[in-house]
């Protein structure tokens, strides 16, 4: 049997699994089969795939250890979201679409060709539309905005890849930097192109939102890091570092400022994600080892924080049927775990002390101070904005319930377990960051 057979089968498996899950998606058993499939794929990604590859239609695909770990992490996140959807429906299409989406992101990370990766991510974006819309009739703003943004990114990447192929030595460095900067800005939702993240957070269900917000920026960061290795001369382009630093700063300002002014929990999630992604983009602009450490640390924390927030918001939405602050008065007494998860997840994204987010933000403050003294101030202000937004949410949650207000009662064991375990992980990484730092150093 060819050495390529097993890796190729693992990459084809999501398509088969999605087809198997599709007819079962309306039954409870389908949820658990989908979750088991995601765990199986995570195992294959983490333990079978590293440093292996295959050839398809003359193109080489290769899974380095880092990509395999990221892909494994995405599969685990998907399994958690499937488990969450056992208690809170995320729409029937979420199961097959989720499997396909994570599967396609693996193809994008395994391809050494930026253009092919972009095409796989475009197909993933088109599949995501079904999960984002989730069968709702009426407004299609979130799905449509996402579709347009991702589709606009693809030609930019294809041209950048063509320039990369045409002159690997860096003859077209300026063109490649400009084209790929546009594409990555769209994938990452860098302000002012962040509309797809916030629209999705407002309109879509939290599971689908978190999945998409995890996948696209994560693949973008993986590819940005890869470009620093395969095309190191891109760092010599004058505007590259400045664009990353100030593009990140703009996202931090927009994300932080708007989080402080929101009036619903879903909107908090959307804008705080924009803030956190902005911090990662700014860190990439440092173009050194510290920057990479910040990006990877932030990536790991974002995975857990967004899952915790998805579970917390799902409980609150179920409790008050909407997630506006003014409707949530008193809900902390009914669902203290959800209130706790919201605070821990929000604090991690804001970079508050005693959470995992603090470590990466602290590194960012120190590193940017040496580049431009205005940047740490921007980070700090953004962080204060995000903290303010979540504290405002907490204030509403802790207020006495309005007389006659009723909440739907239910015991959400799975969501509570996700919040509990995730929160412990976030705090543990905040207090003992060394284990995560060791993992990053190994990469």
């Amino acid at each position, binding site marked *: 049997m060819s050495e390529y057979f097993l890796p190729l089968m693992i990459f084809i498996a999501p398509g088969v699994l999605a087809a198997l899950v599709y007819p079962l998606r309306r039954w409870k058993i389908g949820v658990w089969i989908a979750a088991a499939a995601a765990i199986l794929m995570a195992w294959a990604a983490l333990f079978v795939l590293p440093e292996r590859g295959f050839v398809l239609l*003359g*193109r080489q695909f290769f899974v380095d250890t880092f990509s395999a770990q990221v892909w494994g992490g995405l599969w685990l996140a998907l399994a958690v979201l499937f488990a969450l959807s056992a208690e809170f429906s995320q729409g029937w299409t979420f199961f097959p679409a989720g499997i396909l989406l994570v599967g396609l992101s693996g193809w994008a990370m395994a391809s050494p060709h930026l253009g092919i990766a972009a*095409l796989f991510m475009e*197909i993933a974006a088109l599949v995501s539309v079904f999960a984002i*819309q989730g069968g709702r*009739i009426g407004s299609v703003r979130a799905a449509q905005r996402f*579709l347009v943004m991702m*589709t*606009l990114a693809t030609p930019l990447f294809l*041209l950048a890849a063509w320039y990369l192929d045409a002159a690997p030595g860096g003859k077209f460095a300026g063109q490649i930097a400009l084209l790929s900067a546009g594409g990555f800005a769209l994938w990452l939702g860098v302000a002012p192109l962040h509309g797809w993240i916030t629209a999705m957070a407002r309109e879509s269900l939290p599971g689908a939102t978190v999945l998409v917000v995890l996948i696209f920026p994560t693949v973008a960061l993986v590819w940005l890091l890869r470009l620093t290795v395969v095309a190191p001369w891109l760092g010599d382009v004058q505007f590259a570092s400045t664009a990353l630093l100030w593009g990140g700063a703009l996202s931090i300002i927009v994300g932080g400022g708007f989080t402080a002014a929101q009036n619903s929990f879903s909107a908090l999630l959307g804008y705080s994600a924009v803030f956190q992604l902005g911090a990662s983009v700014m860190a990439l602009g440092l173009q050194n080892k510290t920057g990479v450490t910040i990006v990877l640390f932030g990536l790991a924390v974002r995975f857990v924080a967004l899952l915790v927030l998805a579970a917390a918001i799902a409980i609150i939405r179920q409790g008050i049927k909407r997630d506006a602050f003014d409707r949530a008065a008193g809900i902390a007494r009914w669902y203290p775990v959800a209130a706790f998860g919201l605070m821990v997840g929000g604090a991690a994204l804001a970079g508050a002390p005693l959470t995992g987010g603090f470590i990466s933000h602290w590194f960012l403050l120190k590193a940017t101070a040496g580049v431009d003294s205005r940047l740490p101030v921007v980070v700090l202000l953004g962080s204060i904005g995000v903290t303010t937004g979540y504290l405002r949410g907490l204030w509403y949650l802790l207020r006495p319930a309005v007389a006659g207000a009723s909440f739907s009662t239910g015991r959400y064991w799975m969501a509570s377990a996700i919040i509990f375990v995730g929160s412990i992980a976030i705090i543990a990484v905040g207090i003992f960051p060394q284990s995560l730092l060791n993992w990053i150093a190994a990469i």
Partner: protein
Amino acid sequence: MNIPSLTDIFSIAQKLPLAFSLATFFLTGSMLLLLRDWRFSILALEVQYLALGAQLAHLVRPEIAFAKILVGIFVGLMLYLSARQAGWRKELTLAAGGKRALGNFRAGDGGILPAGRFFRVIFTLFLMVAAVSLAQTHPIGSLPPSVSTAVYWLALVGIGLLILSENPIKVGQGLLTLLIGFELWYTTLEGSLLIVGLWGAVNLLLALAIGYLGIARGVNLEEDF
């Protein structure tokens, strides 16, 4: 009577001057920008794919050009079925005060021209001038001038539709037009089988996603631009 082979058909297409395809693009792009009737805009998109095939027949292998046309036919079919499902027929009938709007070429409520048509005509003319100017001042690589103009024109029409429309099917037509313009250029650069295949899949899935969003949005397909 002998059935013409694919090679015969494409040898005819190759005899068509590039300027003919460019004129077709100008016509179809203007239709997309100016008309509100879905049947005309889907027809315009279909013709656009045929013109793409005809232009590519001059530039790349005929099989690739044929594949593009085939993808275009499926895209058109998907959009047509979606628009039907979403209820444009009912909507147009209602808009025309109970009478069928098809064939009513007068501008106004229920007609095929949208409100704000004067602005749209000016906007279309502006895009035409911009496309021609860009092709002259910034010609694309080694492409013939008429193909450069077509690439700019289609890209501008696509962006124009994205700016002017909210409706998913109309926005989708904008995206597809933008991609057709890009394809006209990119196909001459990249001949990888995997990329050609993935690009075809992207076009088909895009049409599917647009159709799904069009149906999800419901019967309010008509927008007064």
